[in-house]
């Protein structure tokens, strides 16, 4: 027997595999492919106070070993989430985490306060790192004072587990991680997408309507892994690692680098059953290495 259970700063995960916001819908899109209750948890689509239509099409460009997206937080808003989506999905897993975003601090705070009232949502992931919105999003996550300010205000109203999702589009991600830790974040997740772009040489136009977008997929994995390792050496709160994880081996790399759990993102688009395969793969890895507790490999590097 191998223990895969993780105590993620009070959040008990049956295994370290979660899904990344914006890649797993509200979970229900994957119920034909995955036993949702077997996941460590899942993080639902970025939710804002008001409904958002997102950016114009085209919003996606395939790139070598990855993809760019510029969805721009299309979502139905917090009312629709609380009134119709939440009652429908809450049975799927005990760790359904809501990714919260906003254009200004008041929006973050109000959204977080609403989710605080939802009985079976044990955590939020505060998105201060979305690169695809004109206001808010990444603007908060790229300087220490603004990151501190939004976490401080949300912390006042949000009483459960507060995870903060960090942007890699910064000079020193460690400083941002330390700043949000100081303001009471319970954990950090990293990394969000890397800002990138792609051009169609036939039309001589950008491939995305917004010109730039967020790069995800295996192309960014080495950068993500490096950042997880750096942050893990500098903060006491646990880390949820993500960025280009395609298989169990990738997930184990992140845990060895210091992540206590991981999120699977873009891989869900290519193999909608991938999360189940990764959980099984982690189990097999531990069995074959004689590791009885997954916690033993966290931060070995």
């Amino acid at each position, binding site marked *: 027997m191998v223990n895969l259970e993780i105590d993620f700063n009070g959040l008990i995960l049956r295994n370290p595999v979660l899904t990344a916001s*914006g*890649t*797993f*819908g509200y979970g229900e*899109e*994957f119920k*034909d*492919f995955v036993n949702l209750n077997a996941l460590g948890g899942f993080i639902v*689509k970025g939710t804002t106070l008001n409904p958002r*239509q*997102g950016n*114009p*099409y*085209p*919003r*996606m*460009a*395939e*790139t*070598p*070993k*990855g*993809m760019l*997206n510029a*969805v721009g937080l*299309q979502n139905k808003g917090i009312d629709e989430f609380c009134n119709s989506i939440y009652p429908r999905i809450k049975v799927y897993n005990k760790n359904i985490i809501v990714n919260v975003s906003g254009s200004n601090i008041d929006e973050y705070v109000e959204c977080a306060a609403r989710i605080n009232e939802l009985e079976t949502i044990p955590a939020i992931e505060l998105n201060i790192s979305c690169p695809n919105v004109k206001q808010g999003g990444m603007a908060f996550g790229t300087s220490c004072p603004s990151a501190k300010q939004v976490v401080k205000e949300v912390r006042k109203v949000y009483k459960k587990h507060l995870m903060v999702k960090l942007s890699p589009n910064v000079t020193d991600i460690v400083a941002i991680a330390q700043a949000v830790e100081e303001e009471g974040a319970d954990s950090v997740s990293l990394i969000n997408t890397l800002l990138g772009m792609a051009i169609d040489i036939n039309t001589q136009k950008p491939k995305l309507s917004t010109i730039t977008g967020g790069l995800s*997929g295996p192309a960014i994995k080495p950068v993500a892994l490096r950042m997880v390792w750096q942050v893990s050496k500098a903060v006491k709160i646990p880390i949820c690692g993500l960025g280009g994880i395609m298989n169990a081996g990738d997930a184990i790399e992140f845990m060895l680098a210091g992540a206590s759990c991981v999120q699977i993102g*873009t891989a*869900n*688009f*290519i*193999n*909608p*059953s991938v999360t189940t395969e990764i959980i099984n793969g982690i189990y097999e890895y531990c069995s074959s290495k004689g590791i009885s507790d997954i916690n033993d490999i966290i931060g070995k590097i």
Partner: protein
Amino acid sequence: MHKYIHDLRVVNKKRINPDYYILELTYSDTLADMFPGQFVEIKVENAPNTFLRRPISIYDVDYDNNILKLLIQIVGEGTNILSYVEPYDYVNLVYPLGNSFSMPENNRILLVGGGCGMAPLLYTAHYFSDFGYTPSILIGAKNNLGIIEPEEFEKYGELHICTEDGSDGTEGYVTQHKLFESPELFDKVYVCGPEPMMKAVAKWTVKHNIHCEVSLENLMACGIGACLCCVQETVNGNLCVCTEGPVFNVKDLLW
């Protein structure tokens, strides 16, 4: 409707011409129910620069022999590398995806396909024919190389062909075909093809107050409504082509 991720075995690969091939695939168990207009997301192995699956329309389903047919146009590295699969190879599919064309109410129906957009219309004609309807079918392409398996279409309806260079059927665009001089013959029109063609047909149907459904092929990643990349602007906001489409009533589009 349940979606599946399955490895399907290649039974046959028909190379039609340098640009088009047909994959005939079978599954170890009975194939899922599929509806006209639906599509699959196919994984391309050993394509270094192809990261995502490729969305491909269902070209035909032969339930008697448990075979799913895909008509594929080579448009890039993914569809090119996929063309090298051989019988007994396996390809991984996520399917069946998307909504479907609505059923006709009578024989006053016209199917219009342009280029590779004719692919979903074969299964549509086949399906409608199984329910006793005889559609009029118009397929168009740049030249005769783009007119794929007309004998298959002829099994299920009254086939009309046009090519831009006149190398097969009537010369000109599909909308220049004489069928478009007789709007009084049709209650429903089903279209798939290049966007300018679909828009031209849609405009004609709106003018003559004919019900019109188009099948869109926006760039997509997941195919199951998670990534929100393939959205189309509609009167109901941005909707995912992969789950709310690919078939839309033209009245819902902001064309």
